[in-house]
C-alpha cells in the first residue's frame, strides 16, 4: 500500500493519460469548437507554441472536456461513490450544452473516470488522491508552459491523425 504522496503521484499520471487520450480520441486538437478556443490557440501560436496543441488547450478552457469530467467524477466518487460520479457526468453534459459545445468528450471522460477511480478505490486508493492528482495533471498542461504543453499535445495529435 503506497503512501499518500506516492498515491497522488500515481493518480496524477493515471488522470493525465485518461483525459489526454479521451480528448485526443474526440479530436479536440483538430480545431477550436467555439471562436474563443480558436482565439486562445492563435495567441498560443503567436507566443511560439503549436496551433493544434493550442486548439486543445482552448477547447479545455472554453467548455468542460474530459479533464473537467475526470475532476468532477473524482469529486462525485469521493462524496457519494459511483452514483456521485454518474451525477457528475450528468452535470458535465449540462455544462457542455450551456457552453455551446456539441461534443461528448466531457461526458465520456466523466463516465470513464468514474469507473477507473472506483476501480482504484478498491485497491487502496482514495478518490481524494484523484482530486489532487487531476489538479496536478491540469497544472502540467495549462499552468506551466503553454509553448511546451501545446507542442507536446500537437505531437500526440500527430500520432493519431
Amino acid at each position, binding site marked *: 500500500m503506497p503512501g499518500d504522496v506516492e498515491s497522488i503521484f500515481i493518480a496524477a499520471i493515471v488522470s493525465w493519460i485518461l483525459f489526454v487520450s479521451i480528448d485526443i480520441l474526440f479530436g479536440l486538437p483538430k480545431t477550436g469548437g467555439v471562436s474563443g478556443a480558436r482565439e*486562445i490557440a492563435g495567441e498560443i501560436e503567436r507566443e511560439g507554441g503549436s496551433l493544434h496543441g493550442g486548439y486543445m488547450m482552448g477547447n479545455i478552457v*472554453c467548455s468542460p472536456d474530459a479533464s473537467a469530467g475526470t475532476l468532477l467524477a473524482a469529486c462525485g466518487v469521493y462524496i457519494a461513490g459511483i452514483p456521485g460520479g454518474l451525477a457528475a457526468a450528468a*452535470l458535465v453534459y449540462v455544462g457542455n450544452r450551456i457552453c455551446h459545445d456539441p461534443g461528448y468528450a466531457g461526458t465520456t471522460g466523466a463516465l470513464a473516470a468514474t469507473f477507473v477511480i472506483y476501480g482504484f478505490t478498491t485497491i487502496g486508493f482514495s478518490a*481524494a488522491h484523484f*482530486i489532487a492528482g487531476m*489538479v*496536478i495533471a491540469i497544472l502540467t498542461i495549462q499552468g506551466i508552459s503553454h509553448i511546451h504543453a501545446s507542442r507536446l499535445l500537437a505531437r500526440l495529435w500527430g500520432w493519431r491523425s
Partner: protein
Amino acid sequence: MEVITTQEIAILICVAIAVFSAVRVIAERNTVRKLPFLNVLSFAVAGSLALLLPNPLAILAAAAYFVGTTLESNAIASTHAGGLKKDE
C-alpha cells in the same frame, strides 16, 4: 503517528496550486493568455470545494462553479475573437 490525513494533503495540494495559478493570472499581461491559468485556478477551487464539503450538494456546487467559470472564460475569449459576428 499520522499527523496529516489524506484529505488534508489533497486540500493542501489543491490550495497550493490555486495560489500558484492565481499568481500566474496576475503576472500575465495578455488577457487571452491569462485564461488557461484561470482554468487551472477553477480546477483547484472546484477540487478544494468537494474536499472541504463532503456533502452530496457539494458535487452540484463544484460543477456549477466550474461550468460558470468556464462559461465566463468562453465569453471573454469569444469577445476577443470579435463577439457574435463569427458564431453564436
